[in-house]
């Protein structure tokens, strides 16, 4: 039974790294309540046997989630959910939601189509995340940055 709580689906054509997809799908399950505190995530073997992705990818996703405090790796037992993702900001009457509703109304009034609005939100989110990402990039991949460092030297 355990391990059946969440089933990962990897979209190979999306260009989104598989470990990001695993983290996102876990977070979504936590938000929707299909994953709860104390649940055991599938083992790396179970995930790769079902998806044919690289096992290091699964381990990396689990490590990332452990660092974010979402799960805990218990040696010899598996990986367990330690925190739910209750989202105060996502509720109907939250300030964030109200601001977004107002903003959406303004975007509509300006004549934007649904696709335009979605593209705008995605672009803003990407730009923000990229900026955040660049600060992390350096120490995350020390080995791969060899050539870049040589050039900078």
């Amino acid at each position, binding site marked *: 039974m355990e391990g059946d709580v969440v089933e990962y689906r*990897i979209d*190979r*054509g999306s*260009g989104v*790294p*598989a470990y990001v997809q695993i983290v996102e799908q876990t977070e979504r399950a936590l938000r929707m309540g299909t994953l709860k505190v104390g649940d055991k995530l599938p*083992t*790396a*073997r179970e995930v*790769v*046997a*079902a*998806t*044919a*992705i*690289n*096992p*290091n*990818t*699964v381990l990396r996703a689990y490590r990332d989630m452990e660092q974010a405090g979402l799960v805990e790796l218990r040696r010899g037992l598996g990986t367990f959910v330690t925190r739910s993702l209750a989202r105060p900001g996502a509720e109907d009457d939250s300030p964030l939601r109200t601001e977004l509703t107002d903003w959406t109304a303004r975007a509509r009034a300006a004549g934007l189509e649904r696709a335009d609005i979605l593209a705008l939100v995605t672009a803003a989110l990407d730009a923000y995340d990229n900026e955040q990402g660049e600060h992390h*990039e350096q120490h995350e*991949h020390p*080995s*791969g*940055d060899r*050539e*870049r460092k*040589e*050039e*900078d*030297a």
Partner: protein
Amino acid sequence: MTGPDAPAALRATGLGFRYRKRGGWALRDCEFTVPSGRITALVGRNGAGKSTLLHLAGGLLRADSGEIRVLDAAPGTPEARARVAVLTQDKPLYPRFTVADTLRMGEKLNSSWDRAAAERTVREGGIPLTARVGELSPGQRTRVALALALGKRPELLLLDEPMADLDPVARGEIMAALMAEAADRGMSILLSSHVLPELEQTCDWVLLLRNGRIELSEDAYALRESHAMLTGHADQADTLAARHTVVHRRTGGRQLTALVRQHGPLHGDWHVERPKLEDILIGYLQDDDMVRSVAAERTEAAA
């Protein structure tokens, strides 16, 4: 065994090989290190030297210059043979043996043998142990050959286009079986393939051969992060090449599309996309060496 102190899965220094004494070099001046615990994609165009490299690593050919070491041992020595398994394209199996006979043979020929792993690999493919190898489908035969390789419990598995003759469903299943075994024991895998999209989510190290030379030996994530696909006005081409390495470029009218290895932040007016691993590999495999060598000379001069 995958820690920083673990020996490299593969290490080549000045490695060269030619099939005839006075013939051209199939591999030349190859210098690379693949850390252990990686699943490495070995890519290159036909004739780039992929099979030659795998045969050298497996001890089936002997280097003409330099050397290659597998798990810090010389290929072909008893020490290497006990820890390295090779699966070549021709998959030597006896067609008249049953699957059970084949696995028994594996058990006899190897000093250490993991019967459970070998049988699991066969069973997960729904192959009856009583079937004759000659009557199996290509996908099932590949699975039996793989079971034979995995039964050795290798620390390093070398695969030469193992799935070239399989349909997409069988490919997916074999790949999943491979990944599951790798997950279980941190086995290193070196896998040559032409099916680039398949490598996207399975490989975390890339070894790219071009005309018998190693062009890339690098972490797959790092490779993605350090490259960008740019689209913009062609009059920015020179300033771009002065600072970054242009791997591949295409000009159409005033528009330039370029795959670059970034050295620092991008300046100028570019539409930037993160390329997929496949885009990067294609960029390196395409015939466009002139652009790249000019750019390399420039950055060297600037350094």
